């Protein structure tokens, strides 16, 4: 018998066609999720600020036809700073990046009519971006893999963002139950600031 007859025929290989995926789906890390959400939020608010600045009523429009470049520049700086902080797992650049995004919003968004409705939520939005960014930096530490810790922090972050957003709506809707304004509101703000400083001093004293 010829040797070739004894060989088993190999199964012909499929050269084309869809391949079935085998095994579990790739694990999406919590850090990747928070990082993506933070950057997505930053890009969204940057885009919104830039688009709103093209409206003639926007504060940036007073600088001329190219005024929309100002919020765009601030947004780009903010996104770049945020990306740097997230990539290096360093919380340092996050604060300035959020500040840059906020400045971009203030010079672009409030005046633009089609985007005016976003203004009361911008503070909460920025806070959410900052919280997600800091959370992502915290997740760069090895070992924190528990699901419940992520869920707890997500709930706490959502509560803080929601609470902050509600408060930030107040100046926008012009709600003034005490019927005061002008100097009284300024005084109220100063008293609030003094209370904040007092609380911070108390915490510093407690921490030794």
């Amino acid at each position: 018998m010829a040797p070739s007859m004894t060989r088993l025929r190999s199964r012909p290989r499929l050269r084309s066609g869809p391949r079935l995926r085998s095994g579990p789906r790739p694990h999406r890390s919590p850090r990747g999720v928070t990082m993506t959400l933070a950057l997505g939020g930053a890009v969204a608010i940057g885009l919104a600020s830039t688009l709103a600045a093209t409206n003639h009523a926007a504060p940036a429009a007073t600088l001329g036809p190219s005024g929309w470049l100002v919020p765009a520049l601030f947004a780009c700086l903010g996104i770049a700073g945020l990306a740097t902080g997230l990539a290096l797992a360093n919380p340092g650049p996050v604060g300035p990046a959020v500040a840059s995004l906020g400045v971009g919003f203030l010079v672009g968004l409030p005046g633009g009519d089609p985007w005016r409705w976003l203004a009361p939520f911008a503070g909460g939005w920025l806070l959410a971006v900052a919280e997600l960014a800091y959370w992502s930096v915290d997740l760069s530490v090895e070992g924190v893999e528990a699901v419940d810790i992520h869920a707890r922090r997500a709930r706490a972050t959502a509560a803080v963002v929601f609470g902050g957003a509600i408060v930030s709506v107040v100046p926008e809707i012009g709600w003034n139950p005490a019927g005061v304004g002008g100097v009284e509101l300024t005084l109220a703000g100063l008293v609030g600031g003094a209370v904040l400083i007092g609380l911070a001093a108390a915490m510093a004293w407690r921490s030794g």
Partner: protein
Amino acid sequence: MTLSASPKVGAYAALGSVAVLAAIAFGYPEAAAVGMPFLIAVLIGLAFARPPRVVANVAVDRDRLLEGETVRATVTVETDASVPWLRLAWPLPVSLDVEGRSDVRGVTLAAGAVTTVESVMTATRWGVVRLPELLLRGYDELGFFRFESAVEPDVLLRVYPRAETLRRAVTAAETQAFGGNELSRGSGDGTEFADIRPYLAGDRLRRINWRLSTRTGSLHINEMHPDRNTDVVIFLDLFTDVRDGREGTLDYAVRAAASLAEYYLGRRDRVGVIGFGGVLRWLLPAMGSRQIYRIVDSLIDSEVVVTHAWRGVEFIPARILPPKSLIVALTPLIDGRAVDSLVDLRARGFDLVVVEVMAEPFAVPADHEAARLAHRLWELDRRATRFRYRSLGIPIVQWQPGESLARPMEEAREIGRQSRWLRA
């Protein structure tokens, strides 16, 4: 635990304050709308911050190990309040490698529960390693405040050098009085045939060579070479250690010393150690299995102590160097004091073998002309030292770090045999 604000609090407070001030200054309510959530977040964080009481302990599964072996450290953490985010940072010394991505780990602590974190560390260098303090940094629910603490683990790891098993090494020219594995040049009781001589009163009858006695008509006896031990002193040059970050000549010299001590003690020789450097350290020659433990315990404490004082062999107590002992010197041939002391020992009649732990692999010149020229001069100086040794009849062999010690030992045996033949 001490409580302190995280950088996030400062950033949020600054953002919120500036925005609110801008709103007041410019009459721009949108700025307040942006800043208020940050201030609210800081207020919420301030309201709920409370430092927990955290108790941590560190334990290891063993405190004596060889180079390359692993030790498992278990950190047990207990707290009276829930800590959602606790970082354990362990700035380990370079002689310990921790498995995993980094030496910072994170855990979640439940109130009243005991949490354990395990770290597997690999000892990369011999020595006595005290585990550094473990830094604990906990965060509150939102990461606004951190609670810091440190735990001082009372753990001392003794990492012994990994000795190489040698089949043969250089032997002493003269033997001592005790029984051992070295064939003495003298005659006496032994198993190796040496000579035949006429019978003398008192000779043992079992030594009589009957064939020769029958032929000559007078009694003759066989003489044997007795098996004796030798005295070996390992001379460790502790004046200089040429390093390139993780490794250095002293690392290899200590490993070689441990290998030699193990080899000679296995032959029932008496072995002693001299650490010759800024601080003179020694161990008197002795034999037996306990001596190897004494030697490696003394070796792992070896370190270079910088001194500019002149030190010669006159500082070495006489009883450390027994007469007719073999001295095996492990030196990088850098410091003139060690180089001259070895010449002095040779001049005093000691059987000396110099194993040069080559420093060249650790001394790479910088990439500029002056450095290359300095390196060439340095190499010429080292060649001159080697030539000086050879011209004085001191056997010197070079040992490239990383290669087996068997090759230089074999070379030293050959050189020693030739020099003895020349002397005879």
